[in-house]
């Protein structure tokens, strides 16, 4: 319960290095998750049962298995099946897969919220289903679900802390390491929490800005 400025300052460079790792993982996984979510969302409403049920299965598994278990399974479980993956590969796989699953559901809801007349008008002009989806439906759907996607991204940034369990020196692990050297827990933890706040606050603001914007329109 003692905040010591000197320890806090000494810990800072190490914490910032860790923060860079966390932010990098989050950014890559948000982008990959978005791509997965678009593809997954379109598959979820596809008339093709393989695509539809495949996407549903993927989403269900990712929603039901704790992220920590997915990470550990990929990192500690797969090697016994002869598959060895780098910690960063595992982190990005697991984080994008779980984010992609949630974004899939969000995009699906977004597509279904678009008036059916839009698809009818596009198809009547001679567009193919995929053209209509890409050029008419998705641009409207994505715009509409930007607030929940931002919200999911915020969750993802916080969830990156779990990768500290697979030897990655992210923000949390850097904090833990400093604690061991300095034999002080309060100051590094305060620093870790503060940096997580700094990383997530912009997303909180973006989320509320998007929400007001869509409420007004």
């Amino acid at each position, binding site marked *: 319960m003692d905040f010591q400025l000197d320890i806090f300052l000494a810990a800072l460079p190490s914490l910032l290095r860790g923060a860079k790792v966390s932010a990098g993982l989050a950014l890559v996984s948000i982008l990959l998750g978005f791509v997965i979510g678009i593809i997954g969302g379109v598959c979820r409403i596809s008339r093709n049962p393989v695509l539809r049920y495949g996407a549903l299965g993927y989403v269900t598994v990712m929603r039901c298995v704790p992220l920590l278990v997915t990470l550990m399974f990929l990192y500690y479980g797969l090697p016994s099946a002869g598959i060895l993956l780098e910690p960063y590969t595992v982190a990005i796989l697991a984080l994008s897969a779980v984010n992609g699953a949630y974004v899939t559901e969000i995009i699906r809801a977004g597509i279904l919220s678009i008036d059916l007349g839009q698809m009818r008008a596009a198809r009547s*002009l001679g567009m193919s289903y995929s053209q209509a989806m890409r050029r008419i439906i998705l641009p409207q759907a994505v715009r509409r679900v930007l607030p929940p996607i931002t919200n999911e991204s915020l969750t993802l940034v916080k969830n990156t802390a779990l990768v500290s369990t697979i030897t990655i020196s992210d923000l949390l692990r850097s904090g833990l390491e400093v604690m061991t050297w300095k034999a002080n827990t309060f100051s590094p933890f305060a620093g870790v929490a503060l940096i997580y706040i700094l990383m997530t606050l912009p997303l909180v603001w973006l989320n509320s800005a998007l929400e007001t914007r869509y409420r007004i329109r």
Partner: protein
Amino acid sequence: MTGALASSADMPVVIRRLWKSFGSNEVLKGISLSVERGEVVAIIGPSGSGKSTLLQCINFMEPFDEGDVLIDGRPIGLIHSTGGIRRRMSERDLNKLRREIGIVFQQYNLFPHLTVLANIIEAPVHVLGLPRAEAIERARFQLRKVGLHGKEDAFPGELSGGQQQRVAIARALAMQPKVMLFDEVTSALDPELVGEVLASMRLLAEEGMTMIVVTHEMAFAREVADRVIFMDGGMIVESGDPREFFSNPQHERSKAFLKRLLSHGDDTQDAA
């Protein structure tokens, strides 16, 4: 109007014994209708009689069960394969035929995320493959015709209902279709905005466009249409010259429908 098979290639639209049901609900019961080039056919009838479904079957947005629809002599939707069984034509061929059929809906269905100009050039560029500059030229030409010159950069949400509907007409025309279908295009408009849309349609009719117009605007049907068709219960009950039909309807159901319309005055609200 006898729909002789030999001349069907000269007809932009030929419909032969069309049947369509939604589940157990039979909506179209053997509709036959041939439309000549440059002809304007008005379709009237009570709500739920199958008018919208008929238009949706013409471009096969609603697959029909039995019968044929020929666009310029070519069958759309179902084709005969060897063995006499009919199957759905490839999406590619279907998309090609749909380019030739313009349709305007009651709810406009403009693309809200695109400007007026982008709405109109979308299909010419991405479906027909026209160079952008040429598509823009086409779009401006059509916009001038519907009286919306200068609205290129507006978004649909910034326009009145009447303006949006005229953009929808321009968007369909930019594909240079062989026939234009109108499905109660003025029913969602405030009364003071109906006239500007009808004026655009009247102009189109005078230019010789082949048109099938589902409408509750009886004055428009009487003055602009070459033929009026009265539909009820999924069938064509009566078909004929507009002046004759309105002054002297033959069937009991037509008489009852017109009488009901007159007693309601111009209040012809109808849920699509």
